[in-house]
């Protein structure tokens, strides 16, 4: 690396330093662009093209055979019909709360499981295990556990004299009950990401801080928290994307009910699809697209900017 040939000076912009000039030709020959083609074709045909098409079909009344352009009518329906607009606010609540809880609990569990704690292997396995069980399986299981009369949760509460609520049957509670289950299911992954980030922090920092007399809280606050930031970014972004788009758990546990109390955009999209209102369903997709982009993109930019500041 130390002996850079003079001819490299112009080439160094596009290649790594210290290599011979014909580098670029070599790259073109040995890493041909057609390698991208097969994957790109599938991706464009089944993902990008439908996304673009949705911007048109969202403005239509659509039966798959017949397309009628109706302007903003679908969107008006979406935001004026209280049943549909409920899905909009619920999506935001679901996304923010699940993501926030996964960050806090994931970090706590991550710190716990990277410390010298008893039965670490067991704890790691048990926290991660729900990630493997299918969402449908988890949903059904918690449906049984959250049953207002026979469910294990309310029976346990009854033992200590608390009259447990109808977790999934009370319209004010249903969405929050599903949020708890989603956090239960996903916190293992968040903890895993945090564990990867925590292990990468050099131990010397902690030792130096200890020598300087910093207590456990100070070490956490001033070393762990800033240095585990990339992991936090990952957890926030991943869980927000997942949370805003969540469909499976909600569909299995309540079907959006009782009434429309726990409907989110994704379940509204499915319902309209199942009823055959394809234009309206696609408008829902566009709304979801806008919501996800409007939340994720600024956040992504902001989190990454803060990161480089450090």
């Amino acid at each position, binding site marked *: 690396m130390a002996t850079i040939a003079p001819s490299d000076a112009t080439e160094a912009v*596009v*290649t790594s330093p210290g290599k011979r000039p014909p580098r*670029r030709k070599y790259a*073109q*020959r040995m*890493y*041909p*662009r057609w*390698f*991208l083609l097969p*994957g*790109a074709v*599938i*991706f464009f*045909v*089944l*993902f990008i093209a*439908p*996304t673009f*098409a*949705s911007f048109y079909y969202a403005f239509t009344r659509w039966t798959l055979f017949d397309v009628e352009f109706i302007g903003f009518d679908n969107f008006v329906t979406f935001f004026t019909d209280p049943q549909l607009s409920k899905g909009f606010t619920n999506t935001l609540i679901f996304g923010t709360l699940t993501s926030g809880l996964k960050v806090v609990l994931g970090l706590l569990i991550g710190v716990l499981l990277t410390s010298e*704690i*008893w*039965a670490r292997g067991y*704890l790691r396995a*048990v*926290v*991660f295990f*729900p990630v*493997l*069980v*299918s969402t*449908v*399986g988890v949903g*059904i*299981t918690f449906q*049984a*556990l959250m*049953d207002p009369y*026979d469910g*294990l949760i309310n029976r346990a509460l009854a033992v200590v004299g608390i009259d447990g609520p109808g977790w999934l049957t009370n319209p004010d509670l249903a969405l929050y009950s599903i949020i708890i289950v989603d956090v*239960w299911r996903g916190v293992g992954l968040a903890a895993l*990401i945090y*564990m990867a*980030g925590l292990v*990468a922090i050099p131990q010397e920092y902690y030792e130096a801080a200890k020598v300087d007399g910093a207590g456990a809280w100070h070490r956490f606050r001033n070393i762990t928290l800033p240095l585990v930031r990339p*992991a936090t*970014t*990952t957890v926030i972004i991943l869980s927000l*994307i997942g949370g805003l788009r969540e469909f*499976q758990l909600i569909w299995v546990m309540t079907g959006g009910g009782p009434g429309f109390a726990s409907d989110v955009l*994704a379940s509204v999209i*499915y319902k309209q*699809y199942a009823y055959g209102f394809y234009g309206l*369903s696609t408008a829902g*997709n*566009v709304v979801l697209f806008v919501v996800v982009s409007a939340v*994720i*993109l600024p956040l992504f930019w902001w989190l990454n900017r803060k*990161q480089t500041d450090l």
Partner: protein
Amino acid sequence: MNRTVSRHVYGATAVLVSAIIFLVPFAFILVQSFKTGPDSASLSFTWPIDFVFWENVVTVFQTRDYMLITAFINSTILTVLSVSIMVVLAAMIGWVLARRPSRWNPIFTFFILAGLIVPPAIVPTAWIMQSLGIFNTLGGLALVEVAYGMSFCVLLFRAFVSNIPRELDEAATIDGAGPIRLFFQVGFPLLKSVIVTAIVVQSVTVFNDFANPLYFLPGEENATVQLTLFNFQSQFQTTWNLLFTDILLITIPPLLMYIFFNRQIVAGMTSGAIKG
């Protein structure tokens, strides 16, 4: 002395809390699957009166003309097909993107991130699949899963490839390898650990997927394992013992994958995309 005591207290508390929060639900599934129908109907967390696990397994398999077996075959085909296509194509993309500097790279990155962030547009996708004649076919659904999982895999591979020294490629070129041999004989084997991660993560995702089969593969003859759960649940009555037995049975494949590849998953995650 004081410190070791408090460490044990922390540990014991953690074990206890985790057992209540995480183990009880699984113990519950297990216990219900041992029970007879009437016994499980009360949903109580009690020891089974009659131990009929094996009978439950047989009944679950026999329900609706052995639908679970068909579903297992369908899910296996779907998972193997989509994950193998996804991994090979994404590895090729990640390989070229990491190795070949280009002014197009920001655009590729944009599309990759879009693939992670943008929610798929359901009806237009179904419509395109219909015009291609692949709607309601296993192959079609597999291609959809490939499209949806591609971004994650490309990110994973691209990050990993940039850690492999280029000197290896150059040595292979000097030995006369062309681009295809270079990738499949040199690159692909070097990517092994991250390939395992991608395979495990995506297999579990595809195998456990319920929304996309619901949308793009309707109909009973095409059921995947997740949809068999609805056989035991109706508006009026749920046969809980069979339902929980079914949950147990369809959790076995992802569980086996996890047990076998536990270490590699974490290693692959830390070396790949999860760096942030």
